[in-house]
């Protein structure tokens, strides 16, 4: 059959070969993600995919390293002037793709645009203004003392103000952030980043070419051309890598980790991620959940390690809190507390030894194995006589149900946009308040004003050690109170052909710094 096939297909397959050979002179890599950028306007949507694009075509003021530290990019240096002001110095001689020179005016333009972007305005709400001092110096000013100025600065990717100012052919403002529709910024871009978009067919491919006048001449990156193809189907993405059709894929589905590890032509890189998966126990729907002993019993009944090992195939880090390691609030003393006997005792103490029936909802295509996790948890709860009526839904239908708090137990995954513990509490455990937006995703309706006060205190504490202590205390108290049921942090995985050195450019934020990518 091999011979027959070689005869039949050989001639066709050969046609693809010359492309691989020509990669000798100019390095080209083919990249397959599960989706391609929704738009070219990096302020239109705050999502992993858009940030990945931002790191290719733009540069942030500062960025995260693999060790969770800040690395200067377009901002050369920074210093705290007082507890509400941080002064930044901009790098000299940085050019935009259009040829314009980067100045503080561009940073101000970008900052003002972030303030009106529906997706980003929440992150920049604590900031009152960006004050221009001179062409290369500016200050970020906050209303209150604010500890996360640098975290927010990782989201400032300066836009070319001259390029985005004026009116387009239809007489619309070029700077407008338009969520859906054909805006100038969603079709054109000019940043300072290592790559320029030279061709784009939405849903088919995006072609990037290295920017000749890129400021970072010390970057080891040697890739001249990047072709990004969205391949949504997990199996196809993995096949494309194994067959040599693409050089670099992300994400790698847990079911294929072994297959890639075994393959001698590919490298696999995994990291413990920062996205927490958890259950909310709705106290306004179920009276029993108002009793901390019942919540604790549930926390004792769920076997996080078992789920991580069996359902996630080791592709997850069992969690007993929301903050992953490396975050300020991460409290190392908190460990998963699986103990069915203890759970039964607590149920008996609370007067529920005969149990009760609750409803549970989970998405089935949003997080890795989300529906299977929910099934497993339901089975675990059955052991302490809590009967679970589970319903799983596709994500598009799940979130409206979530917003309506349509079930007693609901699953959610959360990644802190600020890479900071307080973000978890603000969205997931603080008392729900429509005016301030606190507790927007708190489907447990858990409310403890003392804990909330600690979080608010941490939000204005610029002393790092004090802040760490505050946030760790919050984690401890939420744990003691079993405010929610944490499951695990979802791991991340990338895979590439052996000659593509991806390890140094990856990080837990999942923004591969492709500008620094080396291909041998």
């Amino acid at each position, binding site marked *: 059959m091999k011979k027959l096939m070689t005869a039949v*297909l050989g001639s*066709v*397959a050969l046609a693809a070969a010359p*492309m691989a050979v020509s990669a000798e002179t100019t390095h080209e890599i083919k990249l397959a993600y599960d989706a391609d950028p929704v738009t070219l306007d990096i302020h239109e949507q705050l999502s992993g995919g858009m940030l990945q694009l931002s790191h290719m075509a733009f540069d942030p003021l500062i960025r995260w390293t693999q060790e969770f530290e800040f690395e200067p990019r377009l901002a050369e240096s920074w210093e705290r002037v007082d507890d509400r002001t941080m002064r930044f110095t901009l790098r000299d001689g940085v050019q935009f793709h259009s040829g314009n020179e980067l100045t503080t005016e561009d940073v101000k333009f970008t900052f003002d645009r972030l303030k009106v972007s529906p*997706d980003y305005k*929440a992150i920049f709400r604590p900031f009152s203004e960006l004050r221009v001092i001179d062409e290369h110096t500016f200050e970020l000013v906050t209303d209150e003392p604010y500890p996360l100025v640098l975290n927010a600065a990782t989201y400032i990717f300066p836009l070319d103000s001259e390029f985005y100012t004026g009116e387009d052919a239809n007489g619309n403002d070029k700077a407008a952030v338009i969520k859906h529709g054909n805006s100038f910024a969603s079709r054109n871009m000019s940043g300072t980043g290592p790559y320029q978009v030279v061709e784009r067919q939405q849903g088919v491919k995006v072609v990037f070419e290295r920017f000749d006048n890129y400021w970072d001449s010390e970057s080891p990156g040697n890739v001249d051309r990047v072709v990004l193809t969205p391949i949504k*189907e997990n199996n196809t993405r993995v096949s494309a890598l194994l067959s040599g*059709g693409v050089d670099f894929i992300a994400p790698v589905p847990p079911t294929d980790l072994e297959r890639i590890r075994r393959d001698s032509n590919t490298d696999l890189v995994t990291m413990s991620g920062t996205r927490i998966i958890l259950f909310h126990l709705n106290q306004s729907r179920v009276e029993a959940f108002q009793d901390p002993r019942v919540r604790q019993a549930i926390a004792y009944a769920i076997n996080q390690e078992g789920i991580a090992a069996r359902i996630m195939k080791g592709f997850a880090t069992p969690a007993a809190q929301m903050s992953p390691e490396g975050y300020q609030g991460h409290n190392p003393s908190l460990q998963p507390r699986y103990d069915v006997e203890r759970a039964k005792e607590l149920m008996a103490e609370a007067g529920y030894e005969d149990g009760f029936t609750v409803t549970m909802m989970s998405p089935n295509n949003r997080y890795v194995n989300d529906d299977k996790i929910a099934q497993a948890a339901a089975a675990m709860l059955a052991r302490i006589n809590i009967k679970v009526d589970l319903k799983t839904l596709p994500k598009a*239908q799940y979130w409206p149900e979530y917003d309506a708090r349509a079930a007693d137990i609901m699953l959610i995954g959360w990644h802190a946009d600020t890479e900071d513990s307080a973000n978890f509490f603000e969205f997931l455990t603080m008392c729900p308040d429509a005016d301030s937006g606190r507790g927007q995703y708190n489907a447990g309706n858990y409310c403890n004003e003392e804990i909330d006060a600690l979080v608010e205190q941490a939000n204005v504490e610029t002393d790092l050690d004090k802040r760490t202590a505050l946030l760790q205390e919050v984690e401890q108290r939420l744990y003691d109170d079993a405010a929610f049921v944490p499951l695990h942090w979802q791991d991340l995985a990338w895979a590439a052909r052996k000659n593509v050195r991806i390890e140094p450019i990856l990080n837990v934020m999942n923004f591969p710094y492709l500008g620094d990518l080396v291909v041998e």
Partner: protein
Amino acid sequence: MLAFLVQRISQAILVMFVISVISFTIQDGLGDPLQELVGMSVSDEERDALREEMGLNDPMVTQYLRFAGNALQGDLGVSYFYGEPTMDVILRHLPATLELVIAASLMIIFLSVPIGVYAAIRPKAWLSKFFMGVSTVGISIPVFLTAIVLIQLFSIGVQVTVFPADTGWGQWLNEFFSTDGGMPSYGRGDDLAHLFGTWESNFFSQTGWAHILLPAVSLASIMLPLFIRLIRAEMMEVLQSDYIRFAQAKGIAPARINFLHALKNTMLPVITVGGVQIGIMVAYTILTETVFQWPGVGLMFLEAITRSDIPLIVAYLMVVGLIFVITNTLVDLIYGLVNPTVKLTGKKA
């Protein structure tokens, strides 16, 4: 003829209307399109403002009337995700799907007719039995499985080592069952020829053919066995009929009987089924295109569903409905050519 066309056009309009109403009423079950447009941490106020701006807060009837009014003027709305008119999006994706269907159809026509006829003329030959056996297997394997197996065999490659490698025959068998891979496993490739408008073609370069081969084979795999069996059964029935026996008795050359007299009558039902099946094949491309990341309307439609991109879903369904109406009309016209006794307007002959 004119009456026939008028009748068909009015049918088409009715079909379009029904499709648009149905797809509009199911949109509530498809979820919230906003989820794909905004990040998780966007506040409820922002969401509401956006919803208002997009007209999603209006009652369903108002939304439908607005849509229908625009549709009558040829405007099928703007896709939420792509941010451009839905017809532009569909026209950009349609050529990829049509090429896939054309390639698969050619494969089916050129294989099923000779095989079907052969199996009918020589039903007892081992080759006929082999084809029938394979077609039973082919018909019962789902498209996506065929596709995954094809990718494994011809893109990634398989190394078989079950036979003892130190013996000559084992070595030979291992070699025989192993494959090299190397065929492209996704997409349309880079070497597309631009024909006109949005039509980029795979048919004019070697890489283009390499990219379309596996998807076309897997798409054809489901229909090919069906057609072989259909042609065989029809042909066998025709060969039993009196006029064939009479021709045989007259001593007309078997080739002339088989291919001129018998085949022509065999093809009548085949054309009817074929027309319907081409429409169904457009639908089947959803699976094939997903597995091969083939950037056609099937893949586009599936993604539109996961994103609740309602304008695009509605427009796609209407276009597919239109394709069905057109293919059926063409089938009826061809039918008339093959069998002159058939009258188009449905009056008794």
